[in-house]
């Protein structure tokens, strides 16, 4: 019962956040300088052509009415047409979201697989050289901007060593159409195309690593401090006194409660990367939604901007909801607090 109440509060809060987001982004999109109709039609369009398109887009209507039209479309699942690509925004987002999602999933995997063991090792050998090394590494990776990491990796792997591809998702001469999920790694396995799977992984490696560095550093540091915090608890001291073998003590009794903070960070990072991957996407010509979003902002492509922000927002809210539930599941104290 308490868990249901906790879940209900979280869902209601999420809906409020999304409504607020839609109002704020709608207002911002309207006050950002630039005339979308003029930008869409090019420099030589006549004033009449611009006026016609403004009317067609409803830009002459009062702002409240425009917002009403937007919400009505949103309720039908229709985000309107993009001025930049001349297609329904739904189609553009469908095509680009899977590329970003694949990149972010790979990023999170790399960050988690590298970050957690590093954090555990640092905690296990606290104040000794492995700890120092991990802390230095973590600080460096956390403070290195992702665009710098992207350029550095690209120059090293593509320009100097020629070992990894530097742009796109697949070789241009490789024929493969993404299917069910839009994730090339998954769809290629489903289609039994191991050659495509291998190439998709190769193409993912550089951008995902560039994007993962900062998250990896954070996860390593938080895992370390969390593990150290748990290791000083009475029950861990007791298990040590009872002679419980170290591997069991570390991985069974310490790691699970230590997981809560990194899990929260991982969730937040996962959600924010959906919108923040654009720098890396632009560097690696990765056809993702974040880069699409940036281009639509520069073109003042109103429907597309709204669409990208709303999809990112929904995703952010959903991931947070899942993380809250997971954390509540792992740590009962959270759901007791949340249901009050």
């Amino acid at each position, binding site marked *: 019962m308490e868990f249901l109440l906790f879940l209900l509060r979280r869902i209601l809060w999420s809906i409020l956040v999304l409504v607020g987001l839609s109002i704020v982004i709608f207002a911002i999109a309207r006050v950002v300088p630039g005339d979308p109709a003029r930008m869409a*039609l090019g420099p030589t369009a006549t004033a009449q052509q611009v006026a016609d398109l403004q009317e067609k887009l409803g830009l002459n209507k009062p702002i409240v009415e425009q917002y009403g039209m937007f919400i009505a479309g949103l309720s039908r699942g229709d985000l309107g047409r993009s001025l930049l690509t001349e297609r329904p925004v739904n189609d553009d987002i469908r095509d680009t979201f899977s590329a970003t999602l694949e990149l972010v999933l790979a990023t999170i995997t790399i960050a988690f697989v590298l970050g957690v063991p590093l954090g555990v090792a640092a905690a296990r050998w606290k104040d000794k050289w492995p700890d120092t090394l991990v802390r230095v590494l973590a600080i460096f990776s956390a403070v290195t901007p992702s665009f710098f990491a992207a350029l550095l990796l690209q120059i090293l792997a593509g320009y100097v060593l020629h070992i990894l591809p530097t*742009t796109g998702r697949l070789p241009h001469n490789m024929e493969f159409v993404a299917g069910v999920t839009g994730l090339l790694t998954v769809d290629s396995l489903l289609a039994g195309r191991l050659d495509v799977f291998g190439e998709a992984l190769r193409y993912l490696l550089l951008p995902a690593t560039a994007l993962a560095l900062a998250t990896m550093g954070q996860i390593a540091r938080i895992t370390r401090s969390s593990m150290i915090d748990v290791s000083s608890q009475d029950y861990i001291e007791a298990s040590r006194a009872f002679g419980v073998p170290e591997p069991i003590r570390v991985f069974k009794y310490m790691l699970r409660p230590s997981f809560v903070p990194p899990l929260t960070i991982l969730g937040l990072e996962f959600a924010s990367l959906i919108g923040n991957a654009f720098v890396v996407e632009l560097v690696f010509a990765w*056809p993702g939604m974040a880069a699409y979003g940036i281009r639509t902002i520069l073109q003042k492509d109103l429907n597309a901007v709204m669409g990208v922000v709303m999809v990112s927002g929904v995703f952010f809210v959903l991931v947070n909801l899942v993380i809250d539930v997971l954390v509540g599941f792992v740590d009962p104290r959270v759901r007791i607090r949340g249901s009050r």
Partner: protein
Amino acid sequence: MTKHRLLAATALSTLMLGAAPAMAVTVTMNTVQIFGTIDPAKISDYTDYMAAVNLYDGLVSVDSAGNIIPELAESWTVSDDAKEVTYKLRDDAKFADGSPVEASDVVYTVERLLRINQGPANLFAGVLAPGSVTAVDAKTVKFTLSKTFAPFLTTVPAIFILNEELVKANEGSDDGQTWLATNVAGAGAYSLKSWDRGSQMTITRNPDYYKGFGAGPIDEVRWIITNDEATVRSLAASGELTMSSQFQSPDTYTALEGMGRFTIAKEETSTAFYLKLNSKAAPTDDVHIRKAIALATDYATIREVISPGGVLSTPLPKAFAAFHADDIPEPVYDLEAAKAEVAQSKYAGAPIPITLGYVAGTKFEEEISLLMQSNLEQLGFVVTQQADPWNRITEIAGKVESTPNVNQIFFGPTYPSPDSMFFTQYHSEAAGTWASMEWVQNPEIDALIDEARGTGDTAKQADIYKTLQHKLVDLQSDVFLNTQTVQHAMDKCLTGFKAVPMMSFDYDFTRYSWTC
């Protein structure tokens, strides 16, 4: 060994063994912005046109000298009053699906263009009306103009002919706009192979192209969308890049040239670089102030160091040789003469506030603006720098009061006629865009532009355009900085790049060949 050399070596060895045919030639080129649309009724910028000139053919095309050359049409005739133009289609003209190109396709294409009223439609506003294009017979089509419009022949290359039957089969409820946004229904030399918006577009040669191909044809063209210099260098180093965009940094051109595989192809273009002076706002509403700014401009430094290009002495680049007023001298940098002009102005004797506008984030424009500031401050100007993102510039250009005094703008012809340069920038009907930030709005200038449009006599047109140049130089509508030099790093095996005075027609890859 680079990828290209490896391909070449492989091809050579297989030929020596008497085996398979030569490898397909793929040209990989980077471009700095995405392809927005490939619908011929909506294309508007240089990337859209770059795809369109390869995927579609028009009745006519343009060569590097700006001449109109036959394409789907083998010939055309113009009536004595210049109001009727009749095109005769080639007998062998056919679409990519093999169906013949007929007059009805041309009629359908133009009607659809006028209905949608976007993209190239602005070229025909007030010139073509619904019903003004008729099929005389299956291979003859007649355009009846609403008024005499001298540049008409030069605007026709922008009409890319659609396969009526194919579009109608997919027209849906929006005149085929959704379908043509991602599909091709043309007679071009290339077909769309793949298009991953945001990252790449690949087009592949249509082997049955009705005009055929010359020696060393390009089998595939792949555009990679990236404006990142490091990415371009990586692509070049890995052997993947064949041709760079025209917007790379000098360092990147140098680096690519240093690799040994590339040559830097440079061409003078008909795109001009101006300081557009707002003639309706103080202090640039005074002609003496405008002349002072022109005299305080260090042309040599800008042309040779900051933004390389050719000499521009009038609003019209020298590429329009027959119409260019050669008797107008090159602008000079003379601070003493500039001081004398300021002294003659109504603003003399007090500090003169002035705003210098440029595109935010554009390094060379910032350098030019700072150079102008240092010179203008010596003349008693109080300078405010105004860096705006491009979106903002398109908006502030819409009103006199929000247009800065000085504006750095590139402008090139959208069709190979001086009219494209004069009407869009200086005619009152075209006021309120970033291309017309001078706010000239002068009845005499308007009348001359209209007169040139209304005469079919080329000699008379040339006289009018020369008069126009003199008048605009006298008004000092702009500071004429330079003509843009376009450059590409190109694989030494790739030839055929020649600048064409019409948007992106220099990227028609049937004009390129692979020589290795």
